[in-house]
């Protein structure tokens, strides 16, 4: 299935892009996706990276075709 990945702040800096479309196995879980991308881009401090599916913080770990997964670094509003 196809997923849209979005990167922000220091994560976008590490990945060198703000968005990419990935073709992945239908069985992939959210934490697998996280691990895979963290390793691929050598993202620092993975504990501080929060994944959000379709803009919903209270997200399930099961993914489906067309989902948008955002990789968010710590917030710094205000």
């Amino acid at each position, binding site marked *: 299935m196809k997923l849209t990945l979005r990167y*922000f*702040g*220091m994560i976008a800096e590490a990945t060198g892009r703000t968005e990419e479309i990935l073709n992945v196995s239908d069985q992939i879980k959210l934490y697998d996706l996280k691990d895979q991308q963290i390793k691929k881009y050598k993202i620092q401090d993975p504990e501080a990276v929060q994944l959000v599916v379709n803009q919903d913080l209270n997200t399930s770990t099961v993914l489906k075709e067309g989902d948008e997964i955002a990789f968010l*670094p*710590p*917030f*710094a*509003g*205000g």
Partner: protein
Amino acid sequence: MDKKKPKKVFVKGAIPPEKIATSIANHQSKTNIGAHSIFLGQIRADEIDGKKVSAIDYSAYEEMAENVFHEIREAAFSKFDMTCCHIYHSLGQVKIGEICLFVFTSSAHRKIAIEACNYLVEEIKAKVPIFGKEIFEDETHQWKVNK
């Protein structure tokens, strides 16, 4: 009041003091208001390892952030008997000394306006996906993290 209308929070660059004056003036016709509470975030010239911050460049997961702002406002209206509530946050570069956050609450009585304003500021800092790149005078940078 204007509880239900979704409003755009993000503004490009710094929030000018005149915008704050205009917001205040716009409330003079609402004569059930007795108290306004305002919070302003201003960019500090922090010094980190001998380097001085000259600006913060704000970015956000915009679609999600506008939704979270909306939810925070709704929650504040259900918790506090506010008359009005306005939030503005900068995107892009804001220089030291300039305003990047403007939270404005109004109520018949002071305690409600003040508590609602504090609630909103804490919620915004904790829940809205906004990211800040602290730019130093030598054009290097580091990423800001809210405490």
